[in-house]
C-alpha cells in the first residue's frame, strides 16, 4: 500500500527565543492511501503541531517530512505551494480561518482558482457538485461565514480542503464544536473519502472522537507518542496507562460502565512542565521510581503495536477500574 504522508523522527519546537519549548519529540508516523490515522491527545499534547507537520506548515527542528515518498523537509515555500492542492488541512477553529467577506461559494472555490485552470462555469459546477455531496444547500452557498452556524461552517472548511481532491487530508479536531449529528455526518463523509483512496489524518481530544473512522490510533502525551496501534486492538486492550485512562474517561452510551473509572491526578501538563523520566509518570496511577528517572522509548509490542511504557514489557501496565 502506498504511503502518502510520513514523519520520520520529527521534532518541533515552538515559541520565541528563550521560551522555546519542545512541542513534538522524535515522532515516527505514516498514513497510507485509503487509510485514516487518528491522533488523540489532550490540549498541549502537540496535536496541532503534529497535524501541521504532515503538511510542512511548521518546519521541523529535526527529522524528515515526506509526502508521496519525496522529502519535503527543506522544500522552499514557493515550491510547496504547488503541492498544497494535493495536501490540505482543516483547521481547529472553524470560525476564524475564513475570510468573513467572502460567501461560502467563493471560499470553496478559492483553491480551484489558485490551482486549476478551470473557467468560472466549470468552477461553479464543481462547487455545486461538491456542495450536494456535503449536503450544503444552494442558499447556504451564498451566505457569508457570519451568517452560518458552526456546524455548517465546518462543512465549508472541509469543502475548501477537498475541492481539489487531495491525496492527503489533515483535520485538526474537526468535530470538537459540532453537535453529535453533524459530527456523525462529517465522520461518514470521511469514511466515504477514505473509500475513494484519500489518506486522512484526524486529531481529537477523545478516542471516541476518532474511533468510528480511524484505522489506526496514535495517543499523544506531551509531544510524544505513548501508544500506537490498530483501532480495534487499542479499544479492546489498551496497554499504556494513559490510553486506558482516556478510554475510561469517555462517557459512553453504555449504562453498565457507570462509575467505573481510572482517575488521574492533576491536569494535563503543558510542555513547560515536562519532568525528566516518563512524561506521564507524575499523573500515572501505577508509576514506579524507575519511571521518574528513565524515559521509556516506544517499544514494539506484538506485531503491530508500539507502546512507550516501562511496565508494558513485563505485562504489568494494566490498571484495574475503580468505582
Amino acid at each position, binding site marked *: 500500500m502506498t504511503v502518502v504522508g510520513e514523519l520520520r523522527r520529527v521534532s518541533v519546537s515552538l515559541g520565541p527565543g528563550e521560551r522555546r519549548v519542545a512541542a513534538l519529540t522524535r515522532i515516527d508516523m505514516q498514513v497510507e492511501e485509503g487509510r485514516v490515522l487518528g491522533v488523540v491527545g489532550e490540549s498541549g499534547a502537540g496535536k496541532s503541531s503534529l497535524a501541521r507537520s504532515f503538511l510542512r506548515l511548521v518546519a521541523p527542528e529535526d527529522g524528515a517530512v515526506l509526502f508521496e515518498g519525496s522529502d519535503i523537509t527543506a522544500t522552499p515555500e514557493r515550491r510547496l505551494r504547488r503541492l498544497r492542492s494535493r495536501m490540505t488541512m482543516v483547521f481547529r477553529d472553524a470560525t476564524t480561518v475564513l475570510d468573513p467577506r467572502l460567501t461560502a461559494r467563493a471560499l470553496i472555490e478559492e483553491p480551484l482558482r489558485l490551482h486549476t485552470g478551470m473557467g468560472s462555469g466549470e468552477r461553479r459546477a464543481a462547487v455545486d457538485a461538491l456542495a450536494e455531496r456535503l449536503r450544503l444547500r444552494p442558499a447556504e452557498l451564498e451566505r457569508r461565514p457570519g451568517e452560518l452556524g458552526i*456546524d455548517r461552517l465546518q462543512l465549508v472548511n472541509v469543502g475548501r480542503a477537498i475541492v481539489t481532491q487531495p491525496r492527503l487530508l489533515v483535520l485538526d479536531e474537526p468535530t470538537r464544536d459540532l453537535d453529535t449529528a453533524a459530527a456523525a455526518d462529517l465522520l*461518514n463523509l470521511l469514511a466515504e473519502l477514505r473509500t475513494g483512496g484519500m489518506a486522512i489524518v484526524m486529531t481529537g481530544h477523545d478516542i471516541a472522537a476518532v474511533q468510528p473512522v480511524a484505522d489506526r490510533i496514535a495517543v499523544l502525551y506531551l509531544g510524544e507518542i505513548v501508544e500506537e496501534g490498530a483501532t480495534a486492538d487499542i479499544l479492546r486492550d489498551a496497554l499504556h496507562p494513559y490510553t486506558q485512562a482516556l478510554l475510561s474517561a469517555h462517557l459512553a452510551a453504555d*449504562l453498565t460502565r457507570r462509575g467505573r473509572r481510572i*482517575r488521574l491526578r492533576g491536569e494535563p501538563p503543558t510542555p513547560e512542565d515536562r519532568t525528566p523520566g516518563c512524561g506521564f509518570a507524575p499523573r500515572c496511577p501505577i508509576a514506579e521510581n524507575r519511571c521518574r528517572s528513565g524515559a521509556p522509548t516506544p517499544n514494539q509490542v506484538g506485531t503491530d503495536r508500539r507502546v512507550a511504557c516501562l511496565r508494558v514489557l513485563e505485562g504489568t501496565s494494566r490498571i484495574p477500574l475503580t468505582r
Partner: protein
Amino acid sequence: MLLDVQDLRVERVADGAPALAGVSFRVVKGRILGLVGEHGAGKSLTASAILGLLRPAARVVGGRALFEGQDLLRMSDADLTRLRGARIGFVVQSGHATLDPSTRVGAQLIRAMSIHRPIVKAEAAWRAETIMSSMGIPEPRQRMREWPHELTPSTVQRVVVALALINEPQLLIADEPTAGLNITTQMQILDLLHLELRRRRIGGVIITRDLGVVAQYCDDVAVMFAGQVVEQGPVAQVFARPAHPFTRTLIAIMPDRLATGGGRAYGGPLPESGGGCPYRPRCDQAAERCATAPPLVGAGVHAARCHFARIGAA
C-alpha cells in the same frame, strides 16, 4: 416534586420569533435530570427563563415553572432575587468568564455567602476554605488569595461548583459545566458534581449536548429539539426503549456506537418552521400526519412527543 416546568414559552424580543415552544419537564428531589439537545435547541434559554434572567433579549410568554409549588415565572423580581443563588444554585457554561476577574477567589466565595444572609467574616472565610477543600482543591487557603486568571481550568470549574453549592441550595442547574475542558478534567468535574448532588440530596439539572454525560451521570433525561422537549423519562428506560426518532438517532450515533458508511445524513439545518413536527425534515419516519403538531404520547414517567411513539413497547 422539586421543579415542575409546564409548557414554558419564550419569544425573542427583537423579532418576536418563538424561541421556546412549550417546554415541559420535572425534577425530583435528590435526582439528576439531564437536559440534552443540540446547539440552539433552547437548553440555556430554558435555564435563564426559570431563573428570570432572560431580559433584555427574550421574554416569557406562557407556561409555569413551579419550584416547590411556587410559580417562578410569576414571582416578583425581589422574591426571585432571594431565591437565586440561595435555594437555586447555578453553574454556568464558560467557567473562566464566570468568575469576576477583579475580585480574589476567596472574596468571591465570601461575597456569595453574604448575599443571602449576614455573615461573620472569619467564619465565612473558614467556610469558604472548607468548601474549597471539599471540592478537591489543594492548598485552598493559598488559592483563596489568588485571582481567577491565576487558576487552572479545573480549579476554576471547581470554584464555580463551590459557588453554586455554598448556600446549600435545593436545586442546582448546571449549564454545560464541562464545555471546553479536557476529557480527563471533564471526568473529574462531573464526578465531583455527581457526588455532591447525591451527598446533599440536591435535585440537579445538567444541561449538555453530550448524551454520554446523561448516560453516565443522570437519573432522568429530557431531550430537547427546536425549543421543545420531545422525550422525557428515566435514563434506563429511555436508553433501552427510546420512543422519539430524534432520541433514537442521538443514541445510535454516539461515537462509540456509530457505524460509518451507512450513507444516511443525521444533521442539517432546521426547517423554516410552518407548524407540525419540527423534527420532520430530518426524520426517517416522517409521514403526512407529521405536518400536524404531534401529541404527547405516554404518561407518568416516560413520554414522547411523536405521532409514532409507543411507550413501553420493546
